[in-house]
């Protein structure tokens, strides 16, 4: 059935309009016709036309000029030019101006039939391509990363800024802070998003295997290499290579990696063929790389090559304002996957969660919520549902002097409120001037 495809015939000759209209109608197309540019533009305002057959020579505005106007109204219309006298010059001009094809009158019926079918196929593919791109954009949106604290807002800004470029990015942060999620967000917002992001955990593999994983290997390169295998570098061609735990790479592989990042070419293990690749590098580490450089366990040249644009993800204890948001997000996530009608966290359980230091960061918080969702009963997570080691409160601030307690409490309240002085003073039930004095006395500084 073609009744979802519309064709507009624009030609000053009535016989041409009539015969084409009739021809297309028998194929169940929605067909319209216009005898000049003004009439065609009017028809274009009235509805969307998928395919437009356009006579090049018409009195008044000619087909070429009309094509420009059509593209301004609907850039997705497929335009096919018709002419009485075929000439290479006109054909080239038409195709350069963005026409789909060019036909000379009279047209072979078989050719016209194929041309229209090809135009429909091309439109379908273009539409499908657009839909897939939209789906990919939807999947890789930055808003997968949860956080409303000032520190996380800063991280989002950095992601937006660096994503559009091809700069090498180093993501630093404690274990469990979501470094891979940040890497995926950068890739998902970059021009490379339609190509793969290939992640490799450099810390999890022994050096020999890491080398083979990165560079691939030829058949017979080592015992057990029965087949040629592409490495992560080749797989990342066109996209992004994410090197997690980059600080744990051995010295030999560091050298090889540096060469690839600089030249964008390499050979597979046991091979001589030079392979060219085009990828963006994003790496992550929780190791003190500066110290590793000083100790000589990490190459200085590689360090400078990787450390071009740094994003530091703050640990969860420094952005406590995000804890309720994250906890509720995980509750919702697991309620859905487990089919359990738990919708929230009780206030005392949430209070404990906020006070806890979360040494394992978001990963630990997620695990805690998941466990609580398993053992908990609807409608909310209670304090006793939280993991035992968690309720041991070993990571709660240690008891000390009254001043130390006051200082810690002020730090927590300020962090919870993104350093909003008025709101923090209100919670602490002191006035703003007193709070400023206490901040100064304890030497507190807003995190950058």
């Amino acid at each position, binding site marked *: *059935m073609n009744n979802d495809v519309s064709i507009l015939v624009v030609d000053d*000759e009535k*016989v*041409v309009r*009539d*015969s*084409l209209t*009739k*021809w297309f*109608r*028998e*194929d*169940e197309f929605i067909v319209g016709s216009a005898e000049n540019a003004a009439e065609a533009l009017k028809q274009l305002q009235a509805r969307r036309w998928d395919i437009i057959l356009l006579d090049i020579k018409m009195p008044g505005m000619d087909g070429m000029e009309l094509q420009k106007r059509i593209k301004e109204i609907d850039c997705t219309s497929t335009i096919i030019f*018709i002419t009485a006298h075929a000439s290479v010059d006109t054909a080239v001009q038409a195709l350069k101006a963005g026409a789909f094809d060019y036909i000379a*009158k*009279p*047209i*072979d*019926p*078989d050719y*016209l*039939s194929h041309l229209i079918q090809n135009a429909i196929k091309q439109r379908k593919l273009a539409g499908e391509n657009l839909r897939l791109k939209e789906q990919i954009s939807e999947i890789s949106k930055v808003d997968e990363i949860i956080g409303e604290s000032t520190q996380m807002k800063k991280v989002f800004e950095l992601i937006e800024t660096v994503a559009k470029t091809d700069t090498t990015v180093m993501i630093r942060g404690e274990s469990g802070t979501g470094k891979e999620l940040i890497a995926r967000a950068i890739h998902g917002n970059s021009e490379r998003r339609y190509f793969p992001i290939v992640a490799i955990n450099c810390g999890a593999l022994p050096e020999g295997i890491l080398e083979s994983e990165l560079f691939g290997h030829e058949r017979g390169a080592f015992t057990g290499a029965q087949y040629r295998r592409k490495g992560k570098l080749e797989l990342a061609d066109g996209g992004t290579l994410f090197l997690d735990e980059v600080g744990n790479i051995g010295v030999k592989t560091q050298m090889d990696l540096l060469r690839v990042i600089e030249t964008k070419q390499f050979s597979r293990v046991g091979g001589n063929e030079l392979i060219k690749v085009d990828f963006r590098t994003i790496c992550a580490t929780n190791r003190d790389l500066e110290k590793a450089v000083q100790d000589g366990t990490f190459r200085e040249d590689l360090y400078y090559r990787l450390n071009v644009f740094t994003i530091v993800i703050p640990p969860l204890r420094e952005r406590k304002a995000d804890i309720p948001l994250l906890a509720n997000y995980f509750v919702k996530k697991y309620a859905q996957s487990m089919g359990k009608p738990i919708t929230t966290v009780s206030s005392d359980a949430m209070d404990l969660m906020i006070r806890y230091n979360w040494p394992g960061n978001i990963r630990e918080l997620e695990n805690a919520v998941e466990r609580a969702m398993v053992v908990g009963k609807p409608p909310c997570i209670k304090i006793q549902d939280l993991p035992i080691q968690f309720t041991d409160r070993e990571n709660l601030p240690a008891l000390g002097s009254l001043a130390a307690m006051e200082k810690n409490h002020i730090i927590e309240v300020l962090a919870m409120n993104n350093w909003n002085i008025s709101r923090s003073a209100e919670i602490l039930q002191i006035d703003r001037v007193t709070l400023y004095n206490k901040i100064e006395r304890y030497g507190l500084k807003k995190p950058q």
Partner: protein
Amino acid sequence: MTTSIQIINTSSHSVLDLEHTCNTIEKVFHVPVDVVRGNLNIDRAFDASRRQYNSTALISHILASSGSGDGKVLGLVDVDLFIPILTFIFGEAQFSGTAAVVSSYRLTNQFYGLEADSILLRERIAKEIIHELGHTFGLYHCRHFDCVMKSSTYVEEIDLKNVDLCPSCSEKLLALPTP
């Protein structure tokens, strides 16, 4: 309501040749078919610059010649037909209308440099007549390769089709309001 189909034969094929074709058409459309030897003045549709006959002009002439009636009328000719935008056509019809025209000119094997085959030609003529009449009854082109309503832009495609409507087009024909 369509009461009959009249075929005005101005081609070199005899009325007797078309008897079998008439039976086939009757089976498809369930109305009596009558073949008459006609004297259409086809010269009026001749285009000297293209050395072909304008099928739309021929249809107007067929309509004028057939007079008023409830039936369909189809002219069978053996000259090369065209519509202005296309290089040639096998036939043309008024969609959901009264008249149609079919030419045997490009249906003969001789046109393609092959040996004459009267049985094949008879089949091709029958298929094209049913196809064009189908349009006058309001049927669109069909996607099924073997349905007679499948659009054919070269003769081998006509040979691939059956002489019948596919079940889907038959159903549509029954459901269509009679033009």
